[in-house]
């Protein structure tokens, strides 16, 4: 029923001034630097945020249930590497992608299983897997870059264009739409919201909490793996060092800026996209205005504090 979902979306977005703020920023930047509003630049903004975007969108469910996935960086690297090696072994593209994505999914499922069945704190569990997966990636690929050559199909993922848009953007939009669809139209989406709101009540309503957690950590791992494949395709290389320390924090920052509480509870994929757009617009605008990197970093931190701090105060 359209009325229901539209109402639900409205309810979730109304208290949320972020879209308006984005609009204001866009206007300000456009006046200060007309190049900002050009279509190429706007596409550039989205293109810049595809990697973090895919991961943030896919990890939103985890954060909605009060968890966190710190292991996305190494998973990203590993997926790229595995794709590289399967390509080298002469596998066709579908198998290459399935291997890369399957590995990410598997790591996510392991994270989820440890969190759900052993009831250990997600921050430490995924910190541990962060270290372990990075180690495994380094064993697999060593510290060097691996050049991906003569793989036009694979390269297309990150650099090709379709209908005049970069394919990576189309991919990001598709993933986002898929996740929004999952959230609004599947039992899983409702279940995630229910667990985040009240895990005890969800259990007493007959829901399998552990299975849900395993699934959403799996999705998070899958998202990181997809991001890894896109990155390797974009830069024509795979390396164990991709997705360096800090990647996971960027991802989390986008999700929480969207208004998803790190303590669990309210949140949505659509909001994460708003958070991403906000970060993307701000950093692109500052780039265009030649704001130095140091000020950009400080601005990013200050924005998180102000946005969330004001939200808490009211």
């Amino acid at each position: 029923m359209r009325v229901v979902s539209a109402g639900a979306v409205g309810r979730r977005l109304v208290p949320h001034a972020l879209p308006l703020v984005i609009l204001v920023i866009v206007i300000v930047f456009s006046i200060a630097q007309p190049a900002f509003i050009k279509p190429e630049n706007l596409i550039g903004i989205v293109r810049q945020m595809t990697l973090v975007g895919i991961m943030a969108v896919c990890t939103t469910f985890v954060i909605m249930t009060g968890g966190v996935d710190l292991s996305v960086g190494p998973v990203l690297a590993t997926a790229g590497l595995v794709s590289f090696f399967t390509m080298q072994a002469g596998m066709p593209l579908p198998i290459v992608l399935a291997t890369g994505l399957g590995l990410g999914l598997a790591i996510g499922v392991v994270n989820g299983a440890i969190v759900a069945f052993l009831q250990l704190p997600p921050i430490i569990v995924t910190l541990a897997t962060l270290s372990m997966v990075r180690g495994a990636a380094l064993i697999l690929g060593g510290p060097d870059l691996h050049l991906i050559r003569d793989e036009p199909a694979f390269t297309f993922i990150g650099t090709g264009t379709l209908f005049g848009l970069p394919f990576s953007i189309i991919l990001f939009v598709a993933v986002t739409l898929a996740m929004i669809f999952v959230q609004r139209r599947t039992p899983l989406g409702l279940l995630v919201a229910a667990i985040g709101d009240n895990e005890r009540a969800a259990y007493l309503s007959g829901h399998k909490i552990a299975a849900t957690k395993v699934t959403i950590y799996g999705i998070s791992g899958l998202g990181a793996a997809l991001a890894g494949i896109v990155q390797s395709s974009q830069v024509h290389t795979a390396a164990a060092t991709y997705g360096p320390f800090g990647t996971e924090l960027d991802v989390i920052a986008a999700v929480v800026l969207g208004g998803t509480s790190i303590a669990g509870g309210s949140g949505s994929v659509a909001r994460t996209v708003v958070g991403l757009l906000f970060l993307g617009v701000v950093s692109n605008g500052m780039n265009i205005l030649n704001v130095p990197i140091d000020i950009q970093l400080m601005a990013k931190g200050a924005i998180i504090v102000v946005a969330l701090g004001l939200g808490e105060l009211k």
Partner: protein
Amino acid sequence: MSVRPTTLALLLFFGTTFLFFSLFAPRFATASNMENLMSGFSFLAILAIGQSFPILLRGIDLSIGAIVALAGMVAFDLTLIFHVPGYLVLPAALAAATLAGTLNGALIVYLRLQPFIATLATLAVYRGLVYSISGRQLVRGLSTTPITDRWITDLETYYDLGSAVGLSRFIKFPWFPLSFFVMLALLAVFQSVLITTRFGRDIYAVGGNLEAARLAGINTRRTTIAAYAICGFCAGIAALILVARLTTSTEALGTGMELTAIAAAVIGGVSLSGGVGSVFGPAIGAFLLGVILLGLTLLGVSQFVQQILTGAILLGAIGYDRLLVVRRQRRTAVFLAERA
């Protein structure tokens, strides 16, 4: 305070690991390797000691890596650009670090931000600040100029205790780095602060049962801010040790150290659910990581395998902690049964 089973298990594990590598890893039980261990992990132990305070309060500080860089850069600038004498540089750098920690605490207390979010934000802020004050960028040529101020470089001193007490006549005794003693001093000070002062007791009370602490009239806000300030202060000390060793500082100093420090604290038995742990455990935790990493290196195990093992140890540590909790709950159930 009685020794908790976690601490005992940790010491036992540390001892076993140490013994294992002494027996099987070539050149592990040598003076030079012990020097490596002490100089290479004392600053990590210091960071872990600091990190214990936020975690004891059910919080976390993700910004300590950036604070390390900040304090390092303050020392760098003051020495090389402004030629401030070292005896003033040291307190200034520490003050900057402590201030940064205090700001973390203030954000958490007054804006009611989740510690994870607040320190994630300040991580970016402090790192940005480091770039903007970086003397390496502001003044041409400074990046290759080493710091020579004795006050700072003397932090990287080794003491031949073996000769001093005459042990060197019998075995080759390691030279002790000053950073190790600094670590021991901090450990002694903060462990006794936790145990013997009212502030220390308040930390456990606030972390263990916030509502009880509030109702007992404890100033929970001040306690929280102080805990984060201490964490910042320890990051400052660690920064100075690193700067002394490198005789310079970089914008990337301390990157990723927050996660290692958190890992050491958790391995050291500080519970993420607050109110449980000491600063002794995290120090041991840091050196346990050191022993394992150095030992495995000497065994010829790749550095990459070590990373996997580090993760496994971390999982083992929280798994063990969880086991103790479950067991305690079972004991309670049995007690209830007996009484019926």
